[in-house]
């Protein structure tokens, strides 16, 4: 039934991580609703907005690494995680 989806371990981990992040954010939101605020980004954002911006820009960081360099993707991942943290805290 799901054989056609051709799951692999890395992609399963990837989606599980995303799902976990979403779950944590949702629970966090219910427990402690977030207020929109203005950080270093040009627009006022909520926690969810910053998460989305962070994930989308992380995807682009990875693509830049793949397209322009031969460097390991772990570096891109590290940069993305740091960037995501910075964005969530001060964005």
């Amino acid at each position, binding site marked *: *039934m*799901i054989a*056609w*989806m051709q799951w692999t371990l890395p992609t399963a981990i990837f989606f599980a991580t995303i799902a976990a992040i979403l779950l944590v954010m*949702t629970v966090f*939101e*219910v427990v402690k609703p977030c207020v929109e605020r203005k950080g270093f980004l040009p627009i006022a954002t*909520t926690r*969810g*907005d910053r998460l*989305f911006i962070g994930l989308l820009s992380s995807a682009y960081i990875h693509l830049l690494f793949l397209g322009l360099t031969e460097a390991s993707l772990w570096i891109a991942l590290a940069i993305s995680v740091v960037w995501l943290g910075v964005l969530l805290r001060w964005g």
Partner: protein
Amino acid sequence: MTHSKRRGFGITFYILLLLLPIYWLLNMSFKTNQEILSSLTLWPQNFTFHNYAVIFTDPSWYDGYINSMIYVSINVVITLLVSLPAAYAFSRYKFVGDKHLFFWLLSNRMAPPAVFLLPFFQLYSSIGLFDTHIAVALAHCLFNVPLAVWILEGFISGVPREYDEMAYIDGYSFPRFFIKIFIPMIRSGIGVSAFFAFMFSWVELLLARTLTSVDAQPIGAIMTRTVGASGIDWGVLAAAGVLTIIPGLLVVWFVRNHVATGFALGRV
């Protein structure tokens, strides 16, 4: 006066240009292939219904129209049924993740159908829906549902929430209020959403063609068969094209009074 005359002239000229290619298709559909290929005539010299007769007497031709109609209708019904409550929720309530859910829905309207081509084919094959009308209808929901939610949300936001509150005080249950009072109030919005769902499902071919082979083949896919060993059968191709324009004309006629607000998606 001269100013408004100039305006009138300008818009008439534009509409004539707009209709010219369609006229040419119509013109060709009434010609014989011999006339089409031998000389350029501005109207049919030997007026013939032969090309239309070919389509209306051959089930493998007219089935294409029937298939397209079926999946478009199923799509419009599904789209409206699921979009109405969702649009109401988005318009009236704040809930966890509402804005992100809304953008996620719209992002599916933005996704190029070509991106989903392969997995759709695999998905519908694996659940045994390949080459059925319902498969195409569901696939078209991908871009029609987000659009319908967006349009309906605009229209519903135009209805003051005092109506909802009054209905509660009068003792209406939510489903009864929704069907008896609310839906009649936003009928023009529903008409416009149905129009858009019809439009985008009717004109789409890439997904419809990929998800069907014989039993649910849309007219657009059947039209490619006019290319034969002896070249293209221009007359029949033109006639088939003309026939695909007619359902759209009928639908736009029904919503003509709401076209202006409708095309602004209820958000002016």
